């Protein structure tokens, strides 16, 4: 009866119930895919069987436990966090730049991360032995994360004058900065040997293959914090859709929203790129699909982007693991193969608006 009343009183054009219902469906989808992904792999270990054994208190074969809890589980959790981080970052950037095709690349985050990774791969050997022993294989992710933040802070500094950030300046300066970073990366690549070139290329295509608990411990909290902070931007991003002046008129602290959006995006994308390399298009495809279904209200868009982004990345990872098994295809290739045509479709269906 209560539910019926709520339906009768809902205003036409209020799509929040769609967002709410969608979030439940997406959560269910994510859970199903997670279980499926755990049971899916080269070794043929069955996740449900092992989990049932554990629940029943029976002994689990040590190899099964290793496969499930030390290989597949950290990889699954990495996929969930990276997918959520990339999709939410995309939604935030699109809200901030007021453009459905915006992505964190506009902040120089991706270019900065790849410069960091390239530097680490090519020049990491020149580090004193003591330092490289201490950092170990963390060097590349750390350098990528540092590079993304350096690029983003530079850009934010350039675009901010007297406490106000100009989004238009950020967009244009981002193009210039990305070109300079690419030139610098090119200089470093010029010095690289063949093996380093191979590492660089594969880093750029992205992969979850190197996932481990220790990587997850480093990057996971950063992404998680960013994801938890993101909903605080929702009302502000809704207001920004009307323009900066109108957003301020309805009582939104516009500068705070801009700063928050930049920091959250840099944290989530920087950490995601650091542990998984370059994975494109998730940030554009996922929010756009969700806007088509439940409208652009960011209060549900951000939550649902996290859920769907996770699912998309889990599926892409399963494809990348199985399509050329027992080898693995870099996951960036899979997301680009799905995302590229989709991006084009978005572009063409918006053609009238873009040309007009």
């Amino acid at each position, binding site marked *: 009866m209560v539910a019926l009343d709520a339906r009768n009183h809902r205003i036409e054009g209020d799509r929040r119930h769609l967002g709410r219902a969608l979030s439940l469906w997406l959560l269910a989808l994510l859970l199903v895919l997670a279980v499926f992904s755990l049971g899916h792999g080269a070794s043929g270990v069955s996740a449900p069987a092992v989990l049932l054994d554990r629940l029943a208190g029976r002994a689990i074969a040590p190899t099964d436990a290793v496969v499930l809890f030390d290989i597949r589980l950290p990889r699954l959790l990495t996929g969930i966090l990276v997918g959520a981080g990339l999709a939410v970052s995309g939604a935030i950037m699109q809200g901030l730049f*007021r453009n459905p095709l915006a992505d964190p690349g506009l902040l120089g985050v991706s270019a900065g991360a790849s410069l960091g990774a390239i530097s680490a791969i090519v020049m990491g050997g020149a580090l004193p032995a003591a330092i490289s022993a201490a950092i170990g294989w963390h060097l590349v992710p750390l350098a990528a994360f540092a590079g993304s933040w350096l690029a983003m802070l530079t850009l934010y500094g350039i675009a901010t004058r007297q406490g106000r950030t100009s989004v238009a300046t950020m967009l244009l300066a981002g193009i210039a900065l990305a070109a300079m970073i690419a030139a610098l990366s090119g200089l470093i690549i010029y010095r690289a040997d063949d093996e380093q070139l191979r590492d660089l290329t594969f880093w750029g295509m992205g992969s979850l293959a190197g996932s481990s608990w220790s990587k997850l411990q480093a990057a996971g909290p950063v992404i998680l914090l960013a994801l938890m902070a993101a909903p605080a931007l929702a009302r502000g991003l809704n207001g920004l859709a009307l323009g900066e*002046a109108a957003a301020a008129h309805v009582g939104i602290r516009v500068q705070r929203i801009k700063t928050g959006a930049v920091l959250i995006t840099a944290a989530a994308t920087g950490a995601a790129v650091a542990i998984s390399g370059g994975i494109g298009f998730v940030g554009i495809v996922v929010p756009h699909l969700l806007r088509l279904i439940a409208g652009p209200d960011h209060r549900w868009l951000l939550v649902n982007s996290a859920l769907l982004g996770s699912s998309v990345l889990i599926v892409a990872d399963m494809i990348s693991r199985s399509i050329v098994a027992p080898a693995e295809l870099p996951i960036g290739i899979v997301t680009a193969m799905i995302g590229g045509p989709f991006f084009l479709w978005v572009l063409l269906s918006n053609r009238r608006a873009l040309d007009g």
Partner: protein
Amino acid sequence: MSLAARNLAIRLGRALILKGVDLTARAGCLTAIIGPNGSGKTTLLRALTGELAATSGQVVLNGRDIAGFRPHELAALRAVLPQQTALSFPFTATEIVRIGLTSHPGRETDRDDLIRAALAAVGLPGHAGRLYQQLSGGEQQRVQLARALAQVWQPLGDDGPRWLLLDEPVSSLDIAHQLTVMRLAADYARRGGGVIAVMHDLNLTAMFADHLLLMHEGRAMGEGTPAEVLTDDLLSRAYGCRLCVNRAPVQGIWLLPQLASV
């Protein structure tokens, strides 16, 4: 209670757009800002909203310097209708009006009631579910007006009057809707609220405004009642062409909004 500019100067980049403007808009009155293109009308309105900081002088809202308000305090006291709003994403009319209630402290059901009432007030009760991009220019303008109205729905609060600041509210409307919107604004003032509108249509201004400010090259050329400001001499000098008030031409077709009935 009033919304007033005191010797207000505004510099945008290197250009001095406002050169010491005084204006006192009283609650309970519809104040119109008129003047030729580029005379500083919109800049003055943007300063009155608190969006532009004064280079010198000040804006005083209900007795307090506007620079001292926090965004949500300001949002509770005044709402703004911009000239045009391009939207980046496909929101429905209902969702747009709800954005106007961002700083609204009330319960969810109160907000829903406000959204319904505001859309009905602008004559769009049946358009609640329509996407903004699919509405005509005039309908979009009225949805934005509904958003502003919902934000300051009660013209008179416990702590003083609320203000509606309208930048060319009737510019993209047909004559019937021009009259509807101007009546809505005048009614808001009659119930104790304050209204300031930038106007291009001098006939509608003469018909609805209680108080006028005539701008010319960043300065106030005249302030007062319509009878005091809308004179042949002042208008001719401000607009740079020979204008005659109250004289009907013998030839040509013309009509007076004063004689329209809705």
